[in-house]
């Protein structure tokens, strides 16, 4: 069962895409929603400050962190990337801190700075990227052989793979292109 963090943000879009790929999903709004047989976790786009606060106050942070560190595959988009990052530029409070990168929030400015682009995400060629008040990855904080940079747009890292984590600053769930979700679904199948 793939869990989609549904505290706030664009969780329905991820749900729709995973259903189109034939996956079973559950929306996680509170601690008791977290399934025992969690085979994958999606951390969705939205406001990271809102989601971080709700994760703490609904007492879900530690249990999800434990699951992530135990190897459950994670797909993180935009705010999800911020929740995972080990460091946030400007010293802001981190959340899970499982992903060895330093991210810069609202890195392209306000909504007028939101943009779209097309690029390769690792082996996925010509993928449509939607950047909405997006962050980017300032730098990675691990050995190059441990963390794989999947995309660089305008000189900025926007997507990485690290162990069981696939994280990006843009929104594949806002497109019709299922290739990134496919990659993630493959990761969830390979752990068994």
């Amino acid at each position, binding site marked *: 069962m793939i869990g989609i963090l*549904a505290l*706030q943000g*664009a969780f329905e879009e991820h749900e729709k895409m995973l259903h189109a790929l034939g996956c079973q999903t559950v929306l996680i*709004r509170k601690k008791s929603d977290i399934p025992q047989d969690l085979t994958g976790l999606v951390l969705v786009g*939205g*406001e990271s*400050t809102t989601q971080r*606060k*709700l994760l703490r106050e609904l007492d879900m942070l530690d249990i999800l962190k434990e699951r992530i560190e135990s190897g459950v595959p994670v797909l993180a988009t935009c705010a999800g990337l911020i929740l995972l990052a080990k460091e946030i530029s400007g010293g802001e409070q981190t959340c899970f801190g499982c992903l060895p990168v330093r991210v810069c929030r609202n890195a392209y400015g306000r*909504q007028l700075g939101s943009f779209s682009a097309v690029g390769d995400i690792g082996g996925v060629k010509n993928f449509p990227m939607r950047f909405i008040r997006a962050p980017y990855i300032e730098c990675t904080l691990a050995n190059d052989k441990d963390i794989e940079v999947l995309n660089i747009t305008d000189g900025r890292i926007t997507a990485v793979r690290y162990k069981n984590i696939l994280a990006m600053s843009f929104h594949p769930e806002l497109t019709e292109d299922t290739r990134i979700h496919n990659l993630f679904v493959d990761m969830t199948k390979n752990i068994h």
Partner: protein
Amino acid sequence: MNNDRYQLNKELAQMLKGGVIMDVTTPEQAVIAQQAGACAVMALERIPADIRAAGGVSRMSDPAMIKGIQKAVSIPVMAKCRIGHFAEAQILQAIEIDYIDESEVLTPADDIYHIDKTRFNVPFVCGARDLGEALRRIAEGASMIRTKGEPGTGDIVQAVRHMRKIQSEIAALAAKREDELFEAAKQLQVPLDLVRYVHENKKLPVVNFAAGGVATPADAALMMQLGAEGVFVGSGIFKSGDPAKRAAAIVKAVTNYNDPEMLASLSENLGEAMVGINEKEIEIIMEERGK
């Protein structure tokens, strides 16, 4: 505004879903709202309850005040302009506001025309009481819709009425035969392509929030269960006894709107709610502004 920009603007609204957008009048209030879990703030000089009390003409806020709020928080900052006042909207775009609310809460500047929102790069949210109003605003370029409610009253009845009306009109349109859509477009006074979209997708082409009169976690949960995708809270927070606590409770109520036990514990000991004025006591009906 090109198509991709409009798409990006609709997508920002998608990122706000399941969240609470709070009215704030100072940087200090904006910080309280952000810490309570707001997904965005609406910067304005006076909250609707005070606009109502003060009377007179209500206008766009001082840009310096809005900039102060932009500096204070990292979440999106919205601001209101008067219906039809495209010069106020130009000013808000110049200070890089994240969303403009062309709002009936302020005194309308034009009693016939709304702003041609397709000429702007920043996104707009507009109020609507029914499907026709919602689709007319979308045709003009709005990338997000909210109910009008009756702002500044603390009375939820109008928001409920508007949300139910929009939802039932969407259901009725979805149930029509395709050859009936031309007449439906005529009746609703909206473009045919938007009627076709609603018919096929059984939803508006943009995100739809509840606004107007939300004062308690239960109010927020009610609107979510009626089909709202998120909630604006205006006077309900900073006119209450304990704004930080009430704001945090409303944020959690919007996430877990289907869990009565959690809603019960969230509703405990929130202190004084805004007193409010009921529908029958108000003199200015703001929802009738802009059709």
